[in-house]
């Protein structure tokens, strides 16, 4: 058995495990496991509407950012 095979096996399996761990940590960090019942309901009532809703909130955030930037521009006074 060559050393390369062992490196490959160890490397791939550890990487896959680490990817799963990273996803789990991301879930914990963004509060997806904070509310047990909501966590289950999200799976039960999964639908397109919720996705649209989430997208709408993203839009709102973006729109506000844009507005703020524009306002900054408006108030920007060039130095002369």
């Amino acid at each position, binding site marked *: 058995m060559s*050393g390369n095979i*062992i*490196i490959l096996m*160890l490397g791939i399996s*550890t990487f896959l*495990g*680490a990817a799963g*761990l990273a996803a*789990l*940590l991301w879930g*914990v*960090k963004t*509060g997806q496991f*904070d*509310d*047990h*019942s*909501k966590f289950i*309901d999200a799976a039960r*009532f999964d639908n397109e509407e919720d996705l649209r*809703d989430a997208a*709408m*909130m993203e839009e*709102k*955030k973006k729109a*506000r950012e844009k507005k*703020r930037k524009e306002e900054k521009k408006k108030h920007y006074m060039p130095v002369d």
Partner: protein
Amino acid sequence: MAQISCTHCNLKFDESVMITEQEGDKTLYFCCKGCQGVYHLLESEGLDTFYDKLGDTELQPAVQTNDDLEKFDLEGFKNKYIKEHDDGLYEINLIIEGIHCSACVWLNEKVLHKTDGVIEATINYTNNKAKVVWDPEEIKLSKIIETIRSIGYNAYPYDPALQEERANKTKKEYYSRILVAVFGAMNIMWIAIAQYTGYFTGMQQRFKDILNVAEFILATPVLFYSGWVFFRGAYYGFKNRIANMDTLVASGALLAYLYSIYAMVSQSGEVYFDSVVMIITFVLVGKYLEVLSKKQAVDTLDSIMGSTPTEVTLIQGQEKTLVSIENVHRGDLIELKPGEKVVIDGIVVYGEGSFDESALTGESEAVLKRKGDPVLSGSVCLDSVIRYEATKEASDSLLHSIVSLLEESITKKPRIEQLADRVSGYFSTIILLIALLTFAGWYLYSGSFETALIVGISVIVIACPCALGLATPMATLVGISVAAKRNILFKEAGFLETMAKSDLLALDKTGTITEGKPSVIQETQYSPYDASLLLALVSTSTHPVAKGIYHYLQDKEESLQPVTLEEIKSIQAKGIQASYLDKQLFGGNALFMEENGIVCAHESDHTLFYFAIDGVLVTRFELSDTIREGAKEAIAAIKSMGIRVVMLTGDHEKSAHHVAKAVGIDEVHARLLPQGKAAFVQTQQAKGHITVMVGDGINDAIALAQSNIAIAMGNGTDVAISVSDVVLMDEKPQSIHDAYRISRRTYLAVKENLALSLLYNAIAIPLAVSGYVTPLVAALSMSLSSLIVVGNSMRIKRIRLTHS
């Protein structure tokens, strides 16, 4: 008549009282205007799928009050509750009232999301708490609250800087760290199996190198991410010049890690990466067990303040106006309606009526207040319209001061140092010293720097802190679960040890030693009568005495049915009068009888209730607050454990001594106000007594918060339960005794565990010092010592509780 459920809230009412409406070919029924409004609002917004999600769940009818909205935009409110983000957004934490199911959560989130200016809205279904982020330039908070109210819910703010939020954050942090540690430990374990097999059967150096590097990669995040808490703890310890458990874990793990890197690079000797990861994982799990059972703190404080009225009816000349309590000044005239809660202290100037002061004194009996009597905030006006003059402003009134005293007591509660912390301090110092001496000795003896370093490090690694780290959490966790099976809920693991050290037990009287409500102890019949008449009469009143008689009659004859009475008149704090067919019924106290020309002259220590038909006395009841079953035996048992038992009560001396004598308590402090009880606890603590306080009401809350261990009755008020450390679900006095026994047994197990792990070290360390430790010995002894500690902790389960 048919019962029909409301289209919005699903509550069932008679068809005749409902608002009906034709919509297409459907008939809609509403119980009130509020529900009707909400229904149409949801429909027009396209949110009527809510009703599909709702199913048969019953909601509370939508009642809309929007007259206090302006307070949400006040500056003071903003400073207290609103957090301003760097980018100009505002954030608030709200408790949403009226959430019954996931559909409610969905609806609230949906509606908030649709509101312009709201950037983020998340609601936690489990505790009904919401976080809302909005743009103050686009929308005001009052508008957001109005939106929530318009769909039939209510929201009030709470301060998230409370302990619970912090506790949740640490819990989450620990959870992530443990996930990484467990991932590392599990993967290193199967690589280590290959290593150990190779150690016995021989393995080529190049394979060994591959395995070493793989272990190194896995161990690094575990040591520096999961083990960060130990480095932090060691750093703080170092700053304060204390060697603690963290010092030992951090230095041991770090040194073993550095040595392993050296062994890996130089291709000599064995690596200890698996030991590094094991130590971190085991001790981290032990720490997490302690964090996990940390007390869920004080949300209810917010809800008391949240549920108190925010405005009062002010009399200005001929006009009545609703004014926010912040705007009431001393000398203002306030009107109270029946059922209203007093929020501002004052003196009655007009009218008389009875007040429920149970929140303040713990006594369930109503108190009659006349002109000139003081009215205290926190009490509830029961039966009449009263006008009183404010003598204090809202912020200095009793209710507010109780809440602020509570908050203060919770934060300055004295903590008792735990045995394991103290032991590990000495232990760490000694081990580090021995390691240093070993290194010096071997360096002088063998002359080789490398050998000396290896042996020195092996001392620290073998002095495995796993057993020491698990000694307390394992024992207390088993103790907590044994107690929970006996309906005694310890909210935090450390409380078991504190309670085991306690030498003073302070008991509240009403509701703790006694049942807290009057019950009939004797009936003296003068002539036979129809009991259903009396049952009907007492069922019209909510007075505790009437309730006591009602329960007595129902227990005596189950088939009894109340008849329908006419002309029912309830006279404040005196009695009830009614007529049935042509009979006149009177029920009440002696004063009430005399006023109606009925002769009765009796002396009794207890509360008396008379019942007369057509002016003739037919029966007399003696009522008294009964002592809980087993109280006397429990108190005797607690005393025999060498604990001083004291009674603290707001009641007068006579009844206090009566109860104390019956249960065998010698030391009684009567007529204590809520602050007085707390002061007693404080003086005892100053004298060095570790105090356990048992209580059930708001009046005990400050003393509970002040005491080292607070025990609340399961039926007590929310505040008492939330400030307490232990809750007795079955309310039996015997449970107090059991709690003492379980905590003492657990404390014994903690001491045994510490002794065992020290014993293990006494054997293993000389081996390490003399240089006999191989990786195999290290791995074996590490698991063995941890297993012994776990096994010894399990023995707590065999405790025999006398009355279970």
